[in-house]
């Protein structure tokens, strides 16, 4: 009888694709083990394996052959199944076993895998990505989504540089929108070369009393935060490992004019700009790591509305004046995700602007605890890569905004049907609470961005969220896993799971990897 039952399970499992050990190992969504905790007389004797009579009773209840693999501490035993099953199916069996008077509890022995940890040599210094206090919780998010090349992140910034820790294959052709020669610092006006020639200035060059400054390589800083080459055994990791990067250069010496910035924003989103060739790679995320005093002007708001209508989400730095974001544009524009900066401990950064117009906060660093990113050793002009390649700890709402832009690109990568408003909503509703009173929802937005929760929410919005238990609801063109466990259904329930498994493979296609990862949590 036992042989017949095992044989039946084997046939059913093979036919329905449950014996996908490769998937089980890779996705940790399958198991062939159940942990049973005993109670009563069986528990008293549980330092040894279950006796044959107990085991046979449990087999009858589970409807499948069981073998005691080993005895655990705490009155528990590991039972092995003859086949690998989806966790949902294993959970249903466990539930059947839990109904036995000798069993205090039973659960699938889930395969756990470490979260994705990049092998970049300086990753351990990037507290903003992984630390529990002030970080973005990215490693867990990366298990589900690391960034798709179909998503383009537009950076309206000071230009780009070649760097050994940037993947040139992820860069799409940008444009230099700086029209004034005194600002462009590259000897010409607008052209198709967004290379950053440096923005160093002499004292008083940007106005009386303004100090001399070395080149900031600000565009390279922000690019590194969003999309440094990751898992390449050197340097740092980016927030997003696969999405492409588009540089629209609009900041130069002394900053950038609104007129050039607005053109750069529109072009990045794929809108027409007079005299400039069309952008064939429209961005879904536009990062604005700059700002200045004053209200959101009419042309800024018009531009934000236009690019949002074109499908791009706009992320803006709150500003570094330590004041009210209401007086810092473009962060104070409507339809913009304004980002305040938090510290390594999750508190409010001393420099960040705050206020009711802030949507969310993200790590921006602090004096003494900056965010590590890409840099160049040139003081005025760039030193060519690789000789000039450098890394620097920086701080600012620029960096906070860049973190959020990288996460926003993860969300579009996880679910390309999201609208800009949905991305903003997900970032806010999944943000985690501030750890101390230096930031509140009245000053620093909804919370600190939680990349893992946000990605899971983006997947759920597409109907790909899975849960740890059982059941399949598949309606229409979607594929939604829900928690549902009906006791006593035995084999018919298993069949339902199997059909569900096939259904998910058929409907969800390539997104099944997300499902498996999500289900492992």
């Amino acid at each position, binding site marked *: 009888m036992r042989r017949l039952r095992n044989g039946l399970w084997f046939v059913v499992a093979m036919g329905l694709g449950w014996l996908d050990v490769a998937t089980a190992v890779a996705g940790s969504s399958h198991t062939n083990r159940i942990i049973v905790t005993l109670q009563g007389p069986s528990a008293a004797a549980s330092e040894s394996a279950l006796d044959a009579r107990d085991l046979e009773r449990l087999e009858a209840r589970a409807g499948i052959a069981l073998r005691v693999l080993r005895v655990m501490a705490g009155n528990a035993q590991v039972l092995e199944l003859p086949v690998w099953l989806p966790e949902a199916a294993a959970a249903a069996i466990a539930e059947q076993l839990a109904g036995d008077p000798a069993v205090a509890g039973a659960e699938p022995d889930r395969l756990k895998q470490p979260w994705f940890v990049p092998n970049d040599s300086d990753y351990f210094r990037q507290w903003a990505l992984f630390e529990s206090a002030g970080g973005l919780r990215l490693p867990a998010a990366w298990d589900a989504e690391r960034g798709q090349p179909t998503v383009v992140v537009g950076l309206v910034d000071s230009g780009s540089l070649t760097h050994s820790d940037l993947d040139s294959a992820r860069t799409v052709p940008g444009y230099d929108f700086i029209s004034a020669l005194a600002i462009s610092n590259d000897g010409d006006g607008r052209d198709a070369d967004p290379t950053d020639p440096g923005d160093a200035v002499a004292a008083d060059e940007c106005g009386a009393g303004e100090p001399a400054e070395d080149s900031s390589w600000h565009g390279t800083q922000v690019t590194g935060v969003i999309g440094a080459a990751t898992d390449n055994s050197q340097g740092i990791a980016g927030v997003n490992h696969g999405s492409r990067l588009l540089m629209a250069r609009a900041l130069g010496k002394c900053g950038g004019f609104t007129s050039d910035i607005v053109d750069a924003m529109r072009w990045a989103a794929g809108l027409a700009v007079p005299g400039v060739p069309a952008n064939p790679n429209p961005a879904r995320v536009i990062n604005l790591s700059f700002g200045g005093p004053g209200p959101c002007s009419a042309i800024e708001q018009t531009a934000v509305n236009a690019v949002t209508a074109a499908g791009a989400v706009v992320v803006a730095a709150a500003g570094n004046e330590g004041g009210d974001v209401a007086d810092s*544009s473009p962060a104070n524009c409507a339809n913009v995700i304004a980002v305040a900066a938090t510290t390594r401990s999750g508190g409010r950064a001393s420099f960040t602007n705050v206020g009711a117009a802030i949507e969310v906060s993200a790590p921006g660093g602090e004096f003494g605890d900056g965010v590590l990113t890409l840099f160049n050793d040139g003081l005025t002009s760039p030193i060519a890569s690789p000789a000039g390649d450098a890394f620097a700890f920086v701080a600012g709402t620029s960096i906070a905004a860049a973190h959020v832009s990288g996460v926003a690109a993860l969300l579009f990568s996880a679910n390309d049907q999201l609208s800009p408003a949905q991305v903003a909503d997900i970032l806010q509703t999944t943000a985690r609470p501030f750890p101390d009173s230096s930031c509140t929802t009245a000053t620093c937005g909804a919370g600190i961005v939680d990349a893992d929760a946000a990605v899971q929410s983006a997947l759920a919005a597409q109907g790909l969220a899975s849960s740890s238990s059982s059941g399949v609801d598949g309606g229409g063109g979607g594929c939604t896993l829900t928690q549902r466990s009906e006791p006593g259904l035995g084999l018919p329930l298993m069949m339902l799971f199997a059909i569900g498994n096939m259904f998910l493979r058929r409907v969800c296609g390539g997104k099944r990897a997300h499902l498996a990862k999500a289900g492992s949590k």
Partner: protein
Amino acid sequence: MTHSLMSYRASSNTERVAYAFLRCLLFSSLWVACAPSSPVRSDCDGQRIIVVTAPGLDTAATELDAVFSQETGTPVHFMRTLFENHHLFCVEGAGDESGLLLVMEKLTRRSDVQSVEADRMRKPQSRYP
């Protein structure tokens, strides 16, 4: 005796035709150089403003530079169209910020202008701790 091209009275039909052609050529050249549809002018020795003109205003057929300069009493030069009816102009000789505000107020009062704003500078928002 000195004559300007405008006031020169030709004595023959041939001369009249010739001078008419020259006048036309000169005005055409001036129009191309000054009209808002001229190539992008990248530099501005003064302050930059963004002017939103009334919908339907044909900027190519209107000598906005001259009209705006006359209106404000200071040289105003078209630089480029940003998009739709949003245009970038350079104001020269307005002086300090209050002078520029005065120019903007005068332009805003015109019926063919919807709004005017300064082309403000924006700066990067990162530091080195």
